[in-house]
């Protein structure tokens, strides 16, 4: 029976891999003439190492194709690509935060996915290979314009040692609701004199995008949303958003001192890996970093805390590969083919980089089964919606970030602060 189960699981895994979006290719669609393509991506150690492995492997299969890589900081890759696209110096393959693709689509700079290269008859075939909503941030007017190499959940990481030191069991006492997080605050927070040396919990303040990544699901957990589906109407001061920001303030107060942090855009998880915060919201991609830190394997991951656990809601956040439509046809075909090649093994991505491709069956691989708390991450992905997407995502993110910071740092009233953010967003959306 056990042997049968193992065979069945292996077959399922093989099927899942075959079913992955990049597994089947129509080689006739790939150019045979000498072609050089440029690819730009954002720096993250394991990610860069893996893509650098894939480039020579692809070039070996396609000796006529040369791939030139450029690696940029995640802090400004979106700006650099945007400027490069505008000045005609953009790469063939671009790596952008998912929320950028609506903007690029409206600007008309994206090449739709090449169905021939992927051996697909329609875009529905491609969409069907992804989890529900997995391509939502890159599907416009029925066509797919980008493919995610990561569609991460945001889940709660717990430092087991710090829980144990407070007499808590990370499994049994893990918070399920935000009120649980507040209740754990006094038990986990350590203050020496006037210095907070360990926070129980903290929201991220190193980047406004990260702030909004946590604020969006909180608003949605109250039943609201920050933007309309078409991204043209803002609801930043809705009663649900005000409740979310009020709760945010309470959680922050209970968690510790938000002014004490070592987090930076290049290392958003610094406080957690240094043991400065006992509970921290991040994605599965942080797992290798946590394992290599003093925290080691002594951590637990649970689902994102909820307002009402019966109606869970979280966030999907990720980055995608897109292709520049200003390039010659041969380059565009080769670019899509390399994207296909890169994404062909979601299990290897997970194992080597820690990125979860939101494809059907990714959870069936051996790597997924061995990956710590993969089931939790997938459960959170299943209840998540993508980061807010609009032609003006950056402006709206900043308006919301300022609203949060006014409340947290300056003691502003949540309603007044969100009213101001709404006024700023409305002005931008009228452009």
């Amino acid at each position, binding site marked *: 029976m056990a042997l049968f189960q193992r065979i069945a699981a292996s077959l399922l895994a093989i099927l899942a891999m075959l079913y992955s979006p990049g597994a089947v290719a129509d080689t006739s669609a790939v150019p045979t003439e000498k072609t050089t393509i440029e690819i730009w991506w954002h720096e993250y150690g394991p990610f860069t190492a893996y893509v650098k492995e894939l480039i020579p492997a692809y070039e070996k299969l396609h000796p006529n194709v040369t791939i030139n890589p450029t690696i940029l900081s995640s802090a400004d890759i*979106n*700006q650099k690509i*945007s*400027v490069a*696209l*505008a*000045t005609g110096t953009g790469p063939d393959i671009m790596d952008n935060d998912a929320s950028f693709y609506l*903007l690029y689509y409206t*600007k*008309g*700079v994206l090449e739709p996915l090449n169905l021939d290269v992927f051996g697909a008859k329609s875009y529905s075939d491609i969409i069907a290979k992804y989890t529900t909503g997995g391509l939502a941030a890159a599907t416009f007017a029925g066509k797919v314009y980008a493919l995610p190499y990561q569609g991460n959940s945001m889940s709660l990481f717990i430092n087991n040692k710090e829980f144990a030191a407070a007499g808590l069991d990370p499994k049994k006492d893990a918070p399920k609701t935000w009120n649980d997080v507040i209740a754990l605050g006094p038990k986990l927070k350590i203050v020496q004199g*006037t*210095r*907070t040396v360990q926070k129980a919990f903290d929201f991220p*303040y190193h*980047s*406004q995008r990260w702030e909004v990544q946590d604020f969006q699901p909180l608003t949605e957990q109250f039943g609201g949303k920050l933007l309309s589906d078409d991204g043209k109407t803002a609801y930043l001061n809705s009663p649900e958003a005000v409740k979310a920001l009020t709760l945010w303030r309470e959680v922050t107060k209970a968690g510790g*001192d*938000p*002014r*004490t*942090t*070592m987090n*930076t855009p290049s290392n958003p998880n610094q406080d957690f890996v240094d043991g400065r915060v006992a509970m921290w919201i991040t994605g599965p991609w942080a797992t290798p970093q946590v394992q290599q830190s003093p925290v080691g394997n002594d951590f637990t991951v649970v689902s994102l805390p909820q307002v009402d656990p019966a109606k869970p809601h979280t966030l999907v956040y990720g980055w995608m590969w897109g292709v520049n439509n200003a390039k010659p046809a041969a380059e565009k075909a080769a670019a899509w083919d390399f994207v296909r090649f890169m994404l062909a093994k979601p299990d290897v991505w997970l194992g080597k980089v820690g990125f979860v491709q939101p494809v059907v069956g990714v959870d069936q691989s051996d790597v997924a089964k061995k990956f710590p708390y993969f089931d939790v991450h997938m459960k959170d992905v299943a209840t998540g919606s993508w980061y807010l997407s609009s032609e*003006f995502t*950056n*402006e709206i993110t*900043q308006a919301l*970030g*300022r609203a949060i*910071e*006014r409340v*947290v*740092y*300056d003691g502003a009233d949540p309603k007044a602060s969100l009213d101001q953010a709404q006024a*700023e967003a409305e*002005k*931008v959306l009228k*452009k």
Partner: protein
Amino acid sequence: MSSAVHAESHTVRRRLRVGLAAKQAMFGYAILFPTIAILCIFRFVPMIQAFIISFSKYDLIHPPQFVGLANFVDLVQDPLFLNSFWVSLIYVVFSVLPVWPLSLALAILFNRRLVFKNVLRSAVFMPVVMPAVVMAVVWTFIYQQDGALNTILGWVGIDPIPWLRSSAFALPAVILIGIWRATPYYMVIFLAGLQAIPAEYYEAAEIDGAGHWSSFWNITLPLLRPTTLLVMVMTVIVAMKVFAVPMIMTGGGPADSTRVLPLFIYQTAFEFFDMGRASAMSVFLFVAVMLFSVAQIRIFTRGEE
């Protein structure tokens, strides 16, 4: 006859002189040409382009659309822009005013005989040669809760200050770096000014019984007037353009408390993709800097007129 010959030789000599002068001028222009060309291409052309784009709606990807003065009208009604301009003004006032006396005091100190003068001068000058990005990263660590600054403050019983995570302290923290970085640079300029003052003036003053203060007020300061004007104008221009430190250390936050105008211009151009508006802001900044500079020159040279 002889007068005719004389006149002819005079004409020939004059022609030769004019020819030589023209050749020298041509040579001078030839030497200057690369610099002028580079300035035109990389300074003046972009400035003119920015001025033209400021009258248009331009998202970098589609061709610009002429919108007249709309960008400027919108700017003066935009609280975010006005806040940024205000932050820039505060930065200028509080980062520039201390630099003048500090750099002058240091210059006077280093103009005297000191033990290890060259070593000390190099040490003081270090912030100027350090790249702004490196400096910003180093200061980010210094400003952390457990950083060097809070540790030192702790020794004298002062509680840790959330330098970069507080709307109240973030701008002073950025200003402090501005002062730290600018002071040695202007010290060198003052030092050059001091060394140009003839020692005889001080010797004569000493014979007349003048003390240090009297020499400072009656000799040093008046003779440093041109240098002081240069320093004042330059410090204001440089402070109005500050970008790298707030960009790296705070990104303009918390809650826009450190979003100086150049940073807002950058965000508007390359994060919001609104080049027309960003160009209008740049024109505004240019005019503001020019007005400040002209006002400083006028005030400073009023007595001379």
